[in-house]
């Protein structure tokens, strides 16, 4: 289905029904309500993990449906996946550096 010739008619591109947009909108609103509500429950460091999990879920719905990536080509998927990989590389390598600096008394922290 990801071959662009396959689903091309006079008006190419996937036209999603109105109900889908309203459904995604409802999910995003619900996610916002949950993330605010759960922020008041004390779970220690788990609070941040839960907040990020909800944010990632909301972002995924926006990317897949509002940004039409669900119906996009495989090449677009690869580009988006690459951005996530590079972002995680930035975070993980950046943090390994900073968090390990004072282990061996290296100046610079």
């Amino acid at each position, binding site marked *: 289905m990801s071959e662009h010739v396959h689903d091309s008619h006079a008006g190419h591109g996937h036209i999603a029904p109105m109900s889908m947009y309203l459904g995604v909108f409802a999910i995003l609103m619900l996610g*916002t309500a949950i993330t605010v509500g759960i922020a008041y429950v004390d779970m220690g460091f788990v609070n941040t993990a839960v907040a990020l999990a909800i944010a990632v879920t909301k972002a995924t719905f926006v990317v897949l449906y509002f940004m039409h990536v669900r119906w996009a080509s495989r090449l677009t998927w690869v580009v988006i996946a690459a951005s996530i990989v590079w972002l995680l590389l930035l975070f993980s390598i950046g*943090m390994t550096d900073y968090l390990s600096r004072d282990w061996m008394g290296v100046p610079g922290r």
Partner: protein
Amino acid sequence: MPDANVHAHDAHNPNLQHHFVDMPQQQEASVLGMWVFLVTEVMFFGGMFLAYILYRMWYYQGFAEASHHIDLFWGALNTVVLICSSLTMALAVRAAQLNNRRGQIVNLILTILLGAAFLGVKAIEYSAKFRDHVIPGPHFEWHGKDAVGAQLFYSLYFALTGLHALHMIVGLGLMSVILFMAWRGRFNSTYYTPVEISGLYWHFVDIVWIFLFPLLYLIGRHAPVTF
């Protein structure tokens, strides 16, 4: 072969540029190009998020105190405003796909109004920060335990929300151009690429806020902060 019909039809499409085979190929090239740009934007904001992760680990108490001080109401309101604007943006693209000129115009105007409302709320929030003397610098005042951490939090708060607001302003400019083109009847079901890729930008800015909201407004809510 349905494919042959598509080519014959596209050959007469005035919006098809000569270096593309057909309209779907032209649109896919644009969408892919926009995504490549958005990847650079992810990395651009990523550096700031890395700074946030690092300083939050080093100044955990200060970040919680400072986040607790921010008015949650305005942040939550702005989250709702941006999600609504993402919906109207998506519906503007859908209207273009359905040859609905009026639908495009109405939804684009709503998107612009919601984006402007977001910036208005941001102005209210920023002025409150000036009033409370939590602008990083020599006049920063903090009565909590960790003034250094709180000041770092507010530095990141202004850098992140400021860059985000700048993206909103650019988005409003983009939407004004798209609205003008839609009003002129430039888009239809075979050619709506500018609406689509401007929409991608708008949704990206929304996604940045989806992460900024919990990380800036919600991290100090559950802990009883002792001042």
